[in-house]
């Protein structure tokens, strides 16, 4: 009978597998329900008991991307037969398409603000973390604690002062304002995470680069950055997820030009009755960028979330 410390037994593997699969099912069911609801008809979406097998329709997606007006049979007659598949769907409900909805713009706002603030956070965070890690900064420990302390209250607690500041600075409902706000919220955690990753990189590499004829900045750029890539990628994912999903500030500070998708999606429901499929479709599409971003960076993430504790 062989015994190994590193190789688990068959039973252990089965148990671990079941545990993981069970957990995945529990967390994924709401997600699957959202995706499925997006393809249901409004009637199916609120049916009780809930319907699992249904006839899929793109009505939710059509409603998400269009604004429609109710039309009388005479008006429908006058408009002639529908020319596209999506017009056909709305005609069947007795409505005509009056134009595109605002979902596209709101989604684009989310992309600009989410990725913009993540990029800005990474640039500032990496620079600050590097300085804290490598240079003799006066009051270093106090400053680091102060930076972290900004996360000790829920960000929304300072909503009113921020609202007033934004109004005075003309930052209300602007992309720049939201990018700055999310950067400010994310920066403290980023500095701490990134400092940990940079601390793990032995300073000898930079010293070697200095002696090899490079300047301090070139050593940072050519030697430290590539090695911190894992940490930067996983920190970026955390920041993007926060900025992407943020709801409270977005409701408060944006209403038009810079409104992001999270405050917009619930408003879909009010435009034509309880249109749950359109809301679900909006949520489904909203999930995609973060999923793609995370999948692209997943090999970094797996190593990154150990917070650099394991060295290869």
């Amino acid at each position, binding site marked *: 009978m062989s015994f190994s410390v590193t190789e688990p037994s068959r039973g252990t593997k089965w148990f671990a597998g079941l545990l993981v699969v069970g957990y995945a099912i529990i967390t994924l069911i709401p997600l699957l329900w959202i995706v499925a609801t997006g393809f249901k008809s409004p009637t199916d979406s609120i049916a009780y008991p809930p319907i699992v097998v249904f006839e899929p329709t793109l009505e939710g997606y059509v409603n998400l991307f269009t604004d429609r007006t109710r039309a009388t049979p005479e008006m429908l007659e006058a408009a002639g037969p529908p020319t596209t598949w999506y017009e056909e769907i709305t005609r069947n409900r007795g409505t005509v398409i009056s134009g595109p909805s605002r979902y596209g713009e709101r989604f684009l706002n989310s992309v600009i603000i989410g990725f913009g603030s993540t990029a800005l956070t990474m640039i500032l965070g990496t620079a600050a973390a590097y300085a804290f890690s490598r240079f003799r900064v006066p009051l270093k420990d106090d400053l680091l604690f102060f930076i972290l302390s900004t996360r000790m209250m829920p960000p929304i607690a300072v909503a009113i002062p921020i609202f007033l500041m934004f109004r005075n600075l003309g930052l209300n409902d602007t992309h720049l304002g939201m990018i700055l706000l999310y950067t400010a919220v994310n920066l403290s955690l980023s500095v701490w995470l990134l400092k940990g990753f940079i601390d793990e990189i032995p300073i000898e590499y930079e010293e070697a680069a200095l002696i090899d004829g490079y*300047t301090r900045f070139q050593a940072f750029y050519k030697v430290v950055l590539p090695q911190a890539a894992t940490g930067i990628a996983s920190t970026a994912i955390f920041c993007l997820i926060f900025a992407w999903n943020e709801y409270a500030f977005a409701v408060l500070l944006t209403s038009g030009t810079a409104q992001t998708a999270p405050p917009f999606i619930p408003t879909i429901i009010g435009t034509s009755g309880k249109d749950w499929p359109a809301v679900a479709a909006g949520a489904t599409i909203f999930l995609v960028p973060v999923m793609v971003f995370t999948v692209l960076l997943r090999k970094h993430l797996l190593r990154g979330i150990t917070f650099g504790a394991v060295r290869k």
Partner: protein
Amino acid sequence: MAEVVLNGVTKSFGADVALTDVTMTIPDGSFVVLLGPTGAGKTTTLRMVSGLDVPDHGQISIGGRDMAGLSPAQRDVAMVFQQYSLYPHLTVRQNLEFPLKSPNLRTPQAEIDRKVSAVAEVLQISHKLDNKATALSGGEMQRVSIGRALVRSPLVYLMDEPLSSLDAKLRADLRIELKSIQADSGATLLYVTHDQIEAMTMATHVGVLDKGRLVQFGSPREIYENPVSVYAASRLGQPRINILPADLFGGAPSRATHIGLRPEQIIQGEGEDSLVQRVEHLGDQTRLHLIFKAHQMITVTNAHTTLKEGDAVKIRPNKPYYFDATGARLA
């Protein structure tokens, strides 16, 4: 290739004094080995010359140029670190090319290729050039890291125990290789080690450091044959010099408290009886552990000796060293 001069160099890290008033001239084209135990200030001296650390007091000049305020890149030095020296995200080839591609040098690619393959050849790493640096064994990593210094032609090479992580055979090969590279190129090399064999075989000059002070500087032979103190005498020689009370044999100068006897300063077959405590056959020589008037000492005898434990051997000192109470050499 340049002369390196340290003048009154002092450095402290907080309350710890790492170097005190070190003055030393490293002649152009010499191979200088700094010898001393951990904490003696060897690595600190290297870092001062490289520009990674700056002295609190004193001057350093390379090739007659004062180094004050110059960055490592501006000093044109190459350094081999004891560990952690290869860029882990690059291949072996990229590691070797790295210094040649620096903004200081901007070497043309053809020249880079030529130098890299020449150095790889010498260090026997040609077949590993396209491996990731992290996929190498410890010995290979250290050879690449030596190679990264050798691809350049800096004013001074600085090496911090470059051979310490290698196995014995490779160390012996690279000792000879390094020495011949240095002798052929006429490069100035400052080398830190605590391995006395490296010091004896490669150095043209040895600097003995003791707690941040340079206690003796000279040729390896000079330091071996004419040490200034007990400490300097103990740095070189295998087996180590025997330090015994001065009056053990008689004839000591008046202020002497200790007598120092290297194995070859103990004549066997004459003088007073000592007891053989242990016999170590090393193949080419045999070590004798002796007890003389209740004091232990070690000496060397011929390889085929018939002496064994419990035998008596007559010994007497021959031109011994005498040291005073502070450890300084008297005669």
